[in-house]
Every structure is written in structure tokens, then in C-alpha cells.
């Protein structure tokens, strides 16, 4: 049985899928976190977030409070400082931030206001992917309400702190989700990543100190400030702190999205929440955190889904939204689909990525079409080394290699069969 747990991020979401607007949000305790934060000093808010162990929910899992502590503070700090909500959600298989923005837009705005206050930011942007038009409408409405009620703008709730918040609609391309590419996109440039250092915390948007944070990460902040770091740590059985939005798609009986304690076992997610595999299909593997994570297989089903345990199993928690591979679906075809995506979305800045992904995609397609030879498999196996971390300008290409390298490891026989039989055995 699923255990009954607190669901701070999603408990307000309405069954009818209508958004929670200001009045309802306030009645349910909304903006109490911001009120409490404004009574604290900014560095006290950062300390609280550090003690909560909140880590980024956008894929990389970096400790949030620690990231903030690199921002120059005090009288001599450069201004304006910026806070950016990364609402670019384009990782294939990922559908969690959209649910938060469409269902409870004020929760994001409150979280952003708290983060902005902690780093003494003057301006905040929501960087939203262009396709999320319903999110855009609801955020626009919520922003207007928040300004009206003095949660944004000049002298917020009489605290002396001022913050302007704008919605920016992006024009596409997955690489915009990478935080430095995102900053270039916000500056009206092509979205190529930037060299680090300097890190955005010191020199980010328009050269000013900038914090970029995932939507789900930010949505945790009102609750951490209201209820404290100990409460937050206690939510997770493995001690990493908090809950996580987990999603499952693929041929399971009940695909969906659930908020569960960080560290919930993979098996519970797949078998209880997602209802197990559809009749006539068998589980073969799962991408645990979106397209750019390594496959996990049967032997990993008892893995607690938190950062450390998933890493120990050889993958990454990533976005926490999983894609299930079943036995009626060709693993080579699935990896081809993924690498087609990555080849198309490469920003083209560095050679191993744009060239290597082009080759990767071609070879996988040749396997699917039955024209690949043994030597192609050797070339394919070399790609994860060619595009290993450190060999490319950003984390995009190493991420693209994660499903490939793990598929070669767990489904190697299936690759071989494509070559030997000169066809896709699933067609």
C-alpha cells in the first residue's frame, strides 16, 4: 500500500484542473512563507534553505542554499541582481513543472519572491517555453494578482524590499534550459552556453549576479520557510529532504504524476502508482529522470528514488519523470528516437557534440533499417567516450550519451540481433 504522506507541492491542486488563484491560495496558507521570509534577514533565509538540504529539481541536483551563498551581498554588490525561474521544461519524458504552473501559479511566484529576497535580487524572470501557452495565461493572471496584493512591486508588504517580476516567453530549442544558454536567450542572442567560470551567481544576466532555479525547486521554498528545515528533512525517508514530483509514462496501466517522499522506492512507483505494466507487456527498463539519464533495469527496482541511491545504481534522478521501456518496444528504436532528438537539438557550438550526435543517430537508424554492419557497433560504442564529460562545452552531449551507453550495456544482444538479422526484430 502507498503510505500516506504530506504533499506540500500538490495538495492544493484542484481536481477540475482549474488554477488556484490568489484568494484560494491565501486561504490555504499561501504567501505566509513570503511574509515570514520578509521578517528574516536575507542571509537567514539562505541559511534556512541550506539546512533544509534542498537540491535542484531541474536535473543536476545542486544544493540550492549553497548556490545562493556565492552571490555577492551587501552594499557593494553589483545591481540589479536577477533571479530566473527555469520553466523551459523540454526534457523528453518530463511533465512536472507544467502541472505546478498551470495548477498553482502563485506557489511559483511566492517561491521566486522568497529566493529573490534571499539574494537581494531586483528583477525576476520566468523563462517559459513557448508551447506552454496555458501556463503563460495563468501565470500572467497570477502575476497581476500578486502585484495588486503587494506581493510584488515596490515595497512589498511594507517591508522596504522591492521586486519586479516578468514573464518571458521563449522561442524554442531544448538547449535554452541549460542555465547559461538560457541567459543568452534572455539577452536576445542565440542560445549557446557560456564558458564557466565566471559562474552566473557572480556574472550572469547582462553581466550581473544571477540565480537560475528550476520551477519545482522554487515551489518548495514557501513550505520550507513556513514549516522549517527539520520538517522538510523529515519528509524524506532517506534523509535527503523533501518530496519529489515523480512521473511515469510508457506502457504502464496508469501513467501519471505523483508527489512522493524523495527516496520512495522505484518499485512502489512503477507497480503501485503506475499500476504495473499493461497486460501483454513486460518491463525491460526505465529512464528514471528523463531522456538524458541512464536506463535502470530489473535489478534496480528496489532503488530508493533519491539523488544518492539513483547515482549508486548507475543513473541520475534527473527530473524524476520516468519513461518505461517494455518488451514490445524495440530498445534500439527507442534509443534512435532519443538520439534523433539530441542530434536535432545540439546547439552546434562544439564539434564532438554536433558531429558525434549526427553519426550516432545515423548508425542507430541504419540498425533499425537493417543496413548496419558489425563495425558500426564499434563506432557506436566509442561515442560515449568521445562525448564524455569534459570533452564538450556543456553537459548536453554527456547527457545525450547516458541512455545510449546504458542501452549498450543492458540491451547489447538486441543491438547485435539488428546487425545479424539485418532488420529490426520488432518490425
Amino acid at each position, binding site marked *: 500500500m502507498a503510505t500516506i504522506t504530506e504533499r506540500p507541492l500538490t495538495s492544493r491542486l484542484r481536481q477540475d484542473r482549474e488554477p488556484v488563484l490568489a484568494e484560494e491560495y491565501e486561504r490555504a496558507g499561501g504567501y505566509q512563507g513570503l511574509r515570514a521570509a520578509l521578517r528574516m534577514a536575507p542571509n537567514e533565509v539562505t541559511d534556512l534553505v541550506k539546512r533544509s538540504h534542498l537540491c535542484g529539481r531541474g536535473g543536476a541536483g545542486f544544493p540550492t542554499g549553497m548556490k545562493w551563498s556565492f552571490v555577492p551581498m551587501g552594499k557593494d554588490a553589483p545591481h540589479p541582481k536577477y533571479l530566473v525561474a527555469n520553466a523551459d521544461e523540454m526534457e523528453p519524458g*518530463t511533465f512536472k513543472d507544467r502541472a505546478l504552473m498551470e495548477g498553482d501559479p502563485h506557489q511559483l511566484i511566492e517561491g521566486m519572491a522568497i529566493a529573490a529576497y534571499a539574494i537581494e535580487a531586483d528583477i525576476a524572470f520566468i523563462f517559459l517555453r513557448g*508551447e506552454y501557452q496555458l501556463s503563460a495565461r495563468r501565470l500572467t493572471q497570477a502575476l497581476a494578482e500578486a502585484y495588486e496584493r503587494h506581493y510584488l512591486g515596490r515595497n512589498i508588504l511594507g517591508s522596504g524590499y522591492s521586486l519586479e517580476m516578468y514573464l*518571458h516567453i521563449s522561442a524554442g530549442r*531544448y538547449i535554452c534550459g541549460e542555465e547559461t544558454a538560457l541567459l543568452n536567450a534572455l*539577452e536576445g542572442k542565440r*542560445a549557446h552556453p557560456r564558458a564557466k567560470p565566471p559562474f552566473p551567481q557572480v556574472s550572469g544576466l*547582462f553581466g550581473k549576479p544571477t540565480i537560475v532555479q528550476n520551477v519545482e525547486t522554487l515551489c518548495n521554498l514557501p513550505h520550507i520557510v513556513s514549516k522549517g528545515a527539520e520538517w522538510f528533512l523529515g519528509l524524506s525517508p532517506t534523509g535527503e529532504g523533501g518530496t519529489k514530483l515523480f512521473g511515469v509514462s510508457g*506502457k504502464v496501466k496508469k501513467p501519471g504524476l505523483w508527489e512522493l517522499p524523495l527516496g520512495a522506492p522505484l518499485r512502489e512507483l512503477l507497480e503501485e502508482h503506475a499500476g504495473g505494466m499493461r497486460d501483454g507487456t513486460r518491463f525491460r527498463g526505465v529512464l528514471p529522470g528523463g531522456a538524458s539519464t541512464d536506463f535502470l533495469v530489473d535489478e534496480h527496482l528496489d532503488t530508493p528514488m533519491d539523488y544518492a541511491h539513483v547515482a549508486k545504481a548507475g543513473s541520475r534522478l534527473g527530473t524524476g519523470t520516468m519513461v518505461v521501456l517494455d518488451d514490445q518496444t524495440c530498445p534500439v528504436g527507442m534509443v534512435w528516437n*532519443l538520439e534523433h532528438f539530441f542530434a536535432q537539438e545540439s546547439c552546434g557550438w562544439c564539434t564532438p557534440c554536433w558531429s558525434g550526435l549526427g553519426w550516432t543517430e545515423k548508425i542507430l537508424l541504419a540498425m533499425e533499417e537493417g543496413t548496419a554492419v558489425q563495425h558500426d557497433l564499434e563506432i557506436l560504442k566509442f561515442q560515449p567516450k568521445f562525448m564524455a564529460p569534459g570533452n564538450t562545452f556543456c553537459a548536453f552531449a554527456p547527457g545525450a550519451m547516458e541512455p545510449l551507453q546504458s542501452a549498450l550495456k543492458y540491451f547489447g544482444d538486441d543491438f547485435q540481433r539488428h546487425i545479424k538479422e539485418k532488420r529490426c526484430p520488432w518490425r
Partner: protein
Amino acid sequence: MLSPEVVTELLSVEEREEIEAEAAHYPVRRAVCIDAMLIVQRHRGWVSDESLGAIAELLGMSTADLDGIATFYNLIRRRPVGRHVAMLCDSVSCWIMGYNRVRDHLCKQLGVPMGGTTADNRFTLLPIVCLGACDRAPAMMIDGELYTDLDEQRINTLLERCE
């Protein structure tokens, strides 16, 4: 270079007002260029050479510079599209859940390949990456509205609704 008068002619008052409102959010004027192109596209369906030139002039950029940015972003259209735009998700969860079947059906019903526009200019059919509806795959967007759990029947109903 276009004269200010020509810019005034090429961009509507509404378009210019919307662009200026967005421009106020940034410390440098050219930062608004992507917003500007999306604004023009919302009004006209696409960004023509004339519109591009006018936006560049308005923001003090070269046309080549702006076109280089336009072509980077897949949601900025430098070619005209049909009255309706259908964007079918071709990413992993939708692929597993029957993308190929749905695509073939769409192409057959509309009589165009992916990327094509129907002869009567009614529809443009484009591929798109994951729409964040993977639990209700296959998914597509028509004119900015999301439709999920697609099958042949549902596609027929959706297409019939679009004049």
C-alpha cells in the same frame, strides 16, 4: 537601412506598443528582439523579410544579426504557414505510445508530409519535441491548444473542427 517612416508602415501600432512594453524590462534594447519576433508572429502568423527588417531597424540591429537569431529558434517561423498549425510530438514517450501510426494517419488525412502545408492553405503540419504531456501520449498541439491520447478517431474529430 529602413527609414523610421517605413518601420511605422511595416509594423502596426499594436505591435510596436507591445514590443516597447517588453523592451522596458531589459537594460539593453536589442535584448527584446526574440519577444519582438514572437509578437509580430502572433499578429501575422510568421516573420517575413519586411517584418524582420523593420524589427531590426526598430531595435538598432543589423538584419543579418537578427536573422541569425531568428533561424536559431524553432518557434520563429520565417515562412508562411496555413490557417491552422498542427504540431505533433515526436519525442520518446509519444514514440512508444504510437507516434508512427498517428503521424501516418495525420499525413494521410491532410495529404501532406511532415513539414508540409495543404494546397488549400488550411493546415501546416510540423513535428515538435516533447509537449510535457507524456502521461497522456500521443500528444499534439493545434493552434496552441494541447490535445492528448490521440488515435485515428480523435484526430478526425479534431481536424473536422478546423475550417
